[in-house]
């Protein structure tokens, strides 16, 4: 572990302590839980950007997706949290890990002299946007009379299948998924020429079969 990563992880621990202290101070236990999930999602992204090894980055992304699922839970959307864990952590991350196997180990690819100035630039831009948005927020956010927290799985299902709901979009999404997955298999399959060349690659001499 070199000095840069030591400093990075020390800063990450400080960030976690500060965030959970802020959460405890502002909203008590609920704030601390929010701070934990917010730290998981933001810290996962930070590690993903910082780490040199792409496998570590991919696993850090798992923390991000889990943290976002926790935020969904805190917002009362438990069905969505479950979908997030199933689809993102179980599906998309597994796909990304397959993609990682394509990537030759190139530890010099991440260069701090590129990451830090660009990060400062983008971070400053978004901090400005966040400031501008937060200064206009009180005018439209309805913060009182919050609805009760429920999973609403039944209402979501009815919304999907009701003709006045999202039936057309639901069917289109089904077609899209079918077409996209079949197309992905078609695009990613090994061509016939590769398969003919295969026995000499894996079978060694002779190329039996």
């Amino acid at each position: 572990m070199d000095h840069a990563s030591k400093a990075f992880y020390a800063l990450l621990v400080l960030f976690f302590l500060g965030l959970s202290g802020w959460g405890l101070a502002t909203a008590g236990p609920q704030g601390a839980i929010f701070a934990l999930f917010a730290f998981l999602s933001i810290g996962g992204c930070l590690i993903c950007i910082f780490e040199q090894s792409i496998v570590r980055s991919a696993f850090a992304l798992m923390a991000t997706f889990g943290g976002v699922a926790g935020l969904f839970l805190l917002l009362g959307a438990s069905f969505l949290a479950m979908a997030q864990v199933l689809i993102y952590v179980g599906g998309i991350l597994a796909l990304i890990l397959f993609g990682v196997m394509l990537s030759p180990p190139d530890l010099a690819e991440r260069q701090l002299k590129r990451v830090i100035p660009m990060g400062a630039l983008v971070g400053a831009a978004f901090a400005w946007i966040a400031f501008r948005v937060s200064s206009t927020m009180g005018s439209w956010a309805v913060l009182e009379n919050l609805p009760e927290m429920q999973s609403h799985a039944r209402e979501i299902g009815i919304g999907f299948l009701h003709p006045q709901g999202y039936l057309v979009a639901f069917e289109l999404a089904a077609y899209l998924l079918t077409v996209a997955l079949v197309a992905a298999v078609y695009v990613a399959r090994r061509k016939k020429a590769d398969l003919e060349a295969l026995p000499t690659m894996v079978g060694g001499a002779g190329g039996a079969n």
Partner: protein
Amino acid sequence: MGLDAYLAVSVALFALGVICIVTRRNIIYVLMGIEMILNAANINFVAFNRFNGDGLEGRMFAIFVIILAAAEAAVALAIVLNVFHLFKSIKPSDIDLLRE
């Protein structure tokens, strides 16, 4: 926790996704950055849904975003597989067939 806390997390996630896309030289990292950005959008959808009335539109949109992200990841990784096959590299700067 009010709406502004969730929006702050969402802004941070979006900015980190953009940083991930513009600073790393590897297509897989670009895909990871896109997933971060989609997650930021999802947090926004669900948070606005919770803090503005009792409809379910935001959650439905978030579910559709997740569906589209799954399709996108599958197709994008298939394309990456082919790009690696063609160029023997998955750096975006190496894919310069049209330049010649």
